[in-house]
């Protein structure tokens, strides 16, 4: 059927080649249950869950670091953390939140949802997908291992040169940072190639680009940004790494280097990066709000095009992070202007969301609360962004808490709120039951209040001249009260986060929510919850934007939607969980081929941290890592994606047709092989 990863025909019978275990190392994993299955899975849904769980674990860590920052800053002359520790904390906090929380969280949503939303059975390269996840995980663990190996990186999340050089940062912390981010970068790049290919190539029949759900669109734009931004930071990281490990001179001022080179490379990556962090969240709320406003998204094409415009313009504004760095008035003016105008497409989004709310019938589930909170709180962050873009005055604002306020409003008020909206919204799809709405609302309101209490006052202390990244501040600056409030707020956020954790645990036993608990609009709601491994019993043929909605609802003579008597789910849904009718598809699913699980992704991924440790400690280890990677690449490459012995995932046999077909291929293969032997001799 519609699977791309078909069994390579010639492998089956190519003489006496041991196809099954190319290196004879393992026999192929076959289980799809139990904990082991998680190590070898290539199912985009499981991988999505892995990404999500890992990201939330890192969120707890990054949040814990933030709490330590806040405890230190609660009062002037704080003594809780030494400057050494404080600097590690804010560096790891920023790095974690950006690279190990929000990016993977959005990878989680993209992985889980894109195939479901475009009517596909998996992503284009399932095993590569697994590889991405493991690479990401090992990169994150590698970075965190620095805490136990002499100290974490401590130069801030943008790690300016030359303070990042060996002369000023002689420990290994920065090495962990450069190498760790290179590893996670590989994961992102692989993911980008994979997901873009998926979006472009694996859409169900009729799913034209302009019928894709907005989430898919925004994820696609974000993946393009990743595709092009990751190599830029890779260059920066390599240069720094070569400086540190091999004595190169890229940021060696004595040798005439220009420290601004680092800033340019970092921010050419860094600014697109912030849109990578927020666009998928925009996508999430663009799907959540219409569902709970009971109305289609207002101005779908504008939403799509403004997203593309943001992605595009996002490349031309990076130097707004360098207004004070001395790049000269002409450059400053150019980047100031380009930055301002990025507010236009973003404004379009805000207004269109409001247009969707307008005259809707708003149902305030927790997901909806978070979504609307994004619209209102992101706006605040966006407006302070516009204030920064006024370059002359940014020389006052930059490197103060006014900036810290800005980016927490866009990152927390934008990305995190969007992520929580998505979590509450898709939870029943992913796990079959809803999270408790009661706890959810408590979570939301605590978080909302805590968030504003934490980051709101930062605007004020920022304008009052409190610089960021300072481990301590003196009395008498007028910052004391606000800092105390911020710290209290941060603990409210922490409590709200614990409420969420509690909700996850407490809701385990909630009743099954059914396939379509929110009366959703997009295809993922047309299949059972959780979806079967193969997603769709029948590949959907798409005729509309919001296809599932249109299958459920027709129009009466006044153009008002009325629920249809008959519509068909796209995979078997159990009787009890149907919401307002619907039939089951009538097809035999035993014919669906799925790629088989594989050990190779995790093995291959393991090679990367080995190389990284090796570069820091001893090259032998690096060589070993290299071997693991080579072995892993060949293993992954030579292994057929569908295990011929595993009975094609779901059913033990192929029909007689297949049998004959294999036979035929065998002949071709043998003939070709035979010829070659003759020629070769």
């Amino acid at each position, binding site marked *: 059927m519609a699977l791309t*990863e*078909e*069994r*390579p*025909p*010639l*492998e089956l019978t*190519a003489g006496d*080649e041991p196809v099954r275990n190319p290196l004879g190392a393992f026999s192929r994993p076959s289980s799809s249950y139990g904990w082991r299955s998680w190590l070898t899975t290539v199912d985009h849904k499981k991988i999505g869950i892995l990404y999500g769980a890992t990201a939330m674990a890192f969120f707890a860590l990054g949040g814990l670091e933030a709490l330590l920052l806040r405890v230190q800053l609660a009062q002037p002359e704080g003594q809780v953390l030494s400057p050494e520790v404080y600097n590690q904390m804010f560096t790891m906090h920023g790095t974690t939140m950006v690279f190990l929380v929000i990016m993977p969280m959005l990878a989680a949503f993209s992985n889980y949802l894109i195939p479901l939303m475009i009517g596909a059975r998996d992503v284009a*390269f399932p095993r*590569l997908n697994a590889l991405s996840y493991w*690479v990401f995980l090992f990169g994150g663990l590698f970075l965190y291992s620095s805490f136990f190996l002499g100290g974490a990186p401590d130069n801030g999340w943008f790690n300016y040169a030359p303070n990042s050089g060996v002369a000023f940062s002689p420990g290994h912390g920065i090495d962990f940072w450069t190498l760790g981010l290179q590893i996670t*970068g*590989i994961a992102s*790049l*692989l993911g*980008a*190639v994979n997901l*873009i*290919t998926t979006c*472009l*190539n*694996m*859409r169900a029949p009729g799913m034209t680009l302009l019928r894709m759900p907005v989430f898919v669109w925004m994820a696609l734009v974000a993946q393009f940004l990743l595709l*092009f931004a990751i*190599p*830029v930071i*890779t*260059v*920066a990281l*390599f240069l720094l790494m070569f*400086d540190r490990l*091999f*004595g*190169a*001179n*890229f940021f060696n001022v004595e*040798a*005439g*280097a*220009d420290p601004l080179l680092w800033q340019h*490379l970092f921010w050419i990556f860094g600014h697109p990066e912030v849109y990578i962090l927020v666009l998928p969240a925009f996508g999430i709320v663009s799907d959540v709000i219409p569902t709970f406003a009971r109305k289609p998204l207002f101005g779908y094409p504008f939403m799509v095009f403004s997203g593309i415009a943001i992605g595009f313009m996002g490349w031309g504004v990076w130097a707004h992070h360098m207004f004070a760095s001395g790049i000269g008035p002409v450059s400053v003016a150019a980047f100031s202007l380009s930055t301002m105008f990025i507010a236009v497409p973003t404004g379009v989004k805000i207004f269109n969301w409001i247009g969707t709310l307008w005259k809707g019938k708003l149902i305030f589930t927790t997901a909806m609360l978070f979504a609307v909170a994004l619209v209102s709180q992101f706006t605040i962050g966006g407006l302070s962004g516009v204030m920064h873009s006024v370059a002359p005055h940014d020389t006052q604002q930059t490197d103060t808490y006014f900036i810290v306020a800005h980016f927490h409003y866009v990152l927390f008020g934008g990305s995190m709120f969007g992520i929580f909206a998505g979590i509450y919204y898709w939870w029943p799809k992913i796990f079959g039951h809803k999270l408790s709405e009661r706890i959810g609302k408590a979570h939301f309101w605590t978080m909302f209040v805590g968030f504003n209490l934490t980051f709101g006052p930062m605007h004020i202390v920022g304008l009052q001249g409190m610089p960021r990244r300072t481990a301590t501040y003196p009395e008498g600056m007028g910052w004391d009260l606000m800092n105390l409030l911020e710290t209290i707020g941060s603990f409210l956020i922490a409590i709200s986060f614990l409420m969420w954790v509690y909700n996850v645990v407490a809701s385990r036993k909630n009743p099954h929510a059914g396939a379509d608990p929110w009366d959703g609009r997009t295809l993922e709601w047309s299949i059972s919850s959780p979806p079967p491994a193969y997603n769709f019993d029948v590949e959907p043929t798409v005729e509309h934007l919001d296809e599932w909605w249109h299958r459920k609802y027709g129009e009466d003579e006044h153009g008002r939607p009325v629920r249809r008597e008959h519509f068909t789910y796209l995979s078997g849904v159990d009787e009890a969980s149907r919401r307002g009718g619907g039939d089951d598809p009538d097809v035999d699913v035993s014919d669906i081929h799925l790629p088989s699980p594989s050990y190779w992704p995790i093995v*291959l991924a393991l090679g*990367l941290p080995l*190389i990284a440790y090796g570069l820091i400690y001893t090259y032998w280890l690096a060589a070993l890592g290299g071997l693991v990677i*080579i072995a892993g*690449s*060949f293993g*992954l490459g030579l292994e*057929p*994606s569908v295990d011929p012995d595993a009975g094609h995932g779901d059913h033990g046999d192929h029909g007689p*047709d297949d049998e004959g077909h294999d036979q*035929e291929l065998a002949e071709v*293969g043998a003939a*070709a*092989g035979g*010829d*070659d*032997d003759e*020629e070769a001799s």
Partner: protein
Amino acid sequence: MSVSEQTATAPAGAVPEGAAHVPHDATTPAHHTSTGLSHEKLAMWLFLGSECLLFGGLISTFLLYRTREVTAGPPVGDIYDIPFTSVSSFVLLMSSLTMVLALSAIQRADHRRARTWLLTTALLGSTFVAGQVYEFTTFVHEGLGYTTNLQGSAFYTLTGFHGVHVTLGILMLLSLFVMSLRGRLPAGKAETVEIVGLYWHFVDIVWIIIFTLVYLIPA
């Protein structure tokens, strides 16, 4: 980068995932994708688009530092051996020709020629890499080491990255060669050759740029 290379482009001697379509299978159309294009080829083009920003960054770094005074050792422009580099550039350029010839042969199922051309391409590539190694050694003798000055670091890093790309390409070509010997590379899999070829040509065009911007245009 070497690592991401290997994984992202997968094919080092490999059956890239999903490469094998099943043309004889009645239930599966030859190309079942929304665009009618194969996943692997699309993925390769995306990857190459991404590589533009990688090499762009390295080239820009070099250009920036090429205009700066050096504090020790010779500026790199003083020790170029243009005739030598021209020859090795020419070798690499011609390897692109042999690469397309290999592809065209395999599409005709002319396996013998395909193998010849694959091997020639790999050999030309190796010649280029050998030339680079030679160049590096002479430069070091002339007093420009990796750590000597800004330009040394930038030059070796840029050309080194390119060299690693060529080397990976050679590995892929050799893997294809071995696959073909073993009869695992029928015309039906010509696309694998094509994809490796795309990578190979890309590495070649990067050199076309480097040759002009780095070597020929005076600082």
